């Protein structure tokens, strides 16, 4: 079976593609990107600001134990409902330069849709560095989970 979510990162290129086919009508897929409350739920972050309009801006913030652990923001360059969102993405408090993101939404049938996300990076090295991040995070999260399990008195 083909993977539903695919990541294409050709060697030596400063871009990557994330594609996903959804069992959702196009309008619902787009709504999941448009509605701040829904974005907050599936992204697992607080949506501080989301101005869905050309020249609007957005800001996400994730807190853990009262500390902000992740913060990102950007501007929206294009916003065409049910078609596309073009925006910049900058992670705060890191060396990562701003990224450019092209999100294309298309209908495959009445009940299925597809998202193609193209991300452009300043350099190949920054792209590769970003790809490495969840690996390291995954390790530390797995560790946290283990800690929680070990803390339970019943064990």
């Amino acid at each position, binding site marked *: 079976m083909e*993977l*539903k*979510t*695919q*990541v294409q*990162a050709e060697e030596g290129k400063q871009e990557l593609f*994330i594609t*996903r086919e*959804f*069992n*959702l*009508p196009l309008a*619902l*897929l787009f*709504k*999941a990107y448009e509605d701040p409350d*829904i974005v907050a*739920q*599936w*992204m*697992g972050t607080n949506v501080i600001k989301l101005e869905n309009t050309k020249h609007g801006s957005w800001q996400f913030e994730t807190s853990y134990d009262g500390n902000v652990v992740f913060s990102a923001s950007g501007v929206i360059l294009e916003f065409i409902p049910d078609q596309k969102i073009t925006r910049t993405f900058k992670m705060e408090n*890191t*060396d*990562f330069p701003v990224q450019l993101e092209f999100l294309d939404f298309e209908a495959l049938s009445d009940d299925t849709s597809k*998202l193609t996300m193209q991300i452009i990076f300043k350099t190949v090295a920054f792209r*590769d*560095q*970003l*790809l*490495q*991040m*969840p*690996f*390291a*995070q*995954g*390790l*530390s999260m797995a*560790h946290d989970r283990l800690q929680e399990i070990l803390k339970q008195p019943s064990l």
Partner: protein
Amino acid sequence: MNLRRDVFQAIADPTRRAILVLVATQSMTAGAIASNFDSARPTVSKHIQILTECELLQPQQNGREIIYHLNGSKMKEIADFIEPFRKMWDDRFNKLEALMKNYKTK
């Protein structure tokens, strides 16, 4: 002595994993790494030494400073890099899909 320093031993320790997370975000000096931890500086130095010995960290002389970088090719020995990244997005999109299916039936 270096023989026992394999990558799996290196990542078995939570502090060392935290160091990898840190350096994955940004290459930095040992001092900068240590400033992120409550542990004594020599303890952190020891961790950095182990990570360097098993080539997960790559030291680079930069004037009087040594900057530590994450060694991507070595990390590949443990896992394909793209897979965790793909998984992260797959999890998010699965959540999105489940959420919107409920939305539809509301």
